[in-house]
């Protein structure tokens, strides 16, 4: 695989190092002279100096023949433009972009950037995961694959409490994959019984969250549960 990485900050550099270990070909574009000078000895000809939102720089990097573009600069507007150019102008098969400010997530979604990574939003999810007051935590969203991973608590009044996984009635498009109980994760085998207070990890299609909440937290309004879980973004 050939990957073009735009931005040689901590994220871009570590992506490059991982790709080296995995044996993939890549090039990193960096526009800050001091950062470029610092990394030149390590990356050699796989480091290109320039503004990765300029098309001639992208072309010099080989965007025309690349399989994946990773836009990980510190500026969201630059990452959006790189993703747009890669998809629309160069028909790059896959683009991954970094969202620096979670408030800009809606813009990446609006412009159909299919895979985004937001460290701040992930950090908030992990904090919610650690806090017992959060009964519903979206953990991962794979937009292109139409799949989400969420964590939800089984309340005492849930019809699923005290039932084996194979006997619970789940909404369509939902799969229980694991049960978190007292700090350990159990695979959700058919015979495993759900207990009140368990957290279950569920795979589901986007839009199924409300059904899932009704099923495991029947006494709470799904809208309230989702609002509590949402990060301070400007999403719709």
């Amino acid at each position, binding site marked *: 695989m050939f990957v073009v990485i735009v931005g040689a900050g901590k994220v871009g550099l570590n992506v490059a190092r991982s790709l080296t270990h995995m044996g993939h070909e890549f090039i990193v574009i960096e526009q800050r002279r001091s950062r470029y000078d610092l990394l030149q000895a390590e990356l050699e000809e796989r480091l290109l100096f320039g503004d990765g939102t300029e098309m*001639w720089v992208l072309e010099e990097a080989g965007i025309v023949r690349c399989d994946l573009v990773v836009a990980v600069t510190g500026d969201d*507007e630059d990452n959006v433009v790189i993703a747009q150019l890669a998809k629309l102008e160069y028909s790059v098969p896959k683009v991954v972009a970094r969202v620096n400010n979670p408030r800009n997530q809606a813009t990446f979604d609006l412009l159909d950037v299919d895979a985004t990574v937001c460290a701040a939003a992930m950090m908030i999810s992990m904090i919610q995961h650690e806090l017992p007051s959060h009964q519903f935590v979206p953990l991962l969203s794979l937009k292109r694959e139409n799949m989400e991973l969420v964590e939800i608590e089984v309340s005492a009044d849930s019809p699923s409490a005290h039932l084996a996984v194979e006997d619970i009635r789940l909404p369509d498009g939902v799969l229980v994959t694991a049960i978190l109980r007292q700090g350990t994760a159990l695979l959700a085998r058919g015979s495993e019984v759900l207990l009140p207070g368990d957290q279950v990890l569920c795979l589901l299609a986007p839009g199924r969250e409300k059904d899932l909440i009704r099923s495991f937290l029947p006494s709470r309004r799904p809208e309230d549960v989702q609002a509590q879980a949402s990060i301070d973004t400007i999403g719709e």
Partner: protein
Amino acid sequence: MYVIIVGCGRVGSSMARQLVSEGHDVVVVDEDPSSFRLLGDGFPGQCIVGAALDWDVLREAGIEGADAFAAATDGDNTNIVCALIAWRRFEVPCAIARVYDPLRARVFARLGLQTVCPTDQARVMMMDAVHACPKSATGE
């Protein structure tokens, strides 16, 4: 007309003053509050301090009822992205981005975004001026 201008530099501020003098409603958005001094004393329009990529800032500027949106910050990518938001999300009938880089200006114009490329326009005008030069006796 209700017009939102993003970026209160030389272009944004003089557009704002001209539009106001023509009787239009104008809102100017800029991240730097000191930039509003370019509007002069007694500017009757609204000034909002904030980032133009932020949908809440755009809503505060009244984007939901705006007739036109002009992005003239010093960043090409900022202008492209906020004009795309105005056009695609808020359906502002006329969203214009200033883009210095002719290549990017062309790509996003092909997508349907209205772009103004000062570099291209300067090239055309400079070329016209050169072509209009009187030739010397030895010139071709």
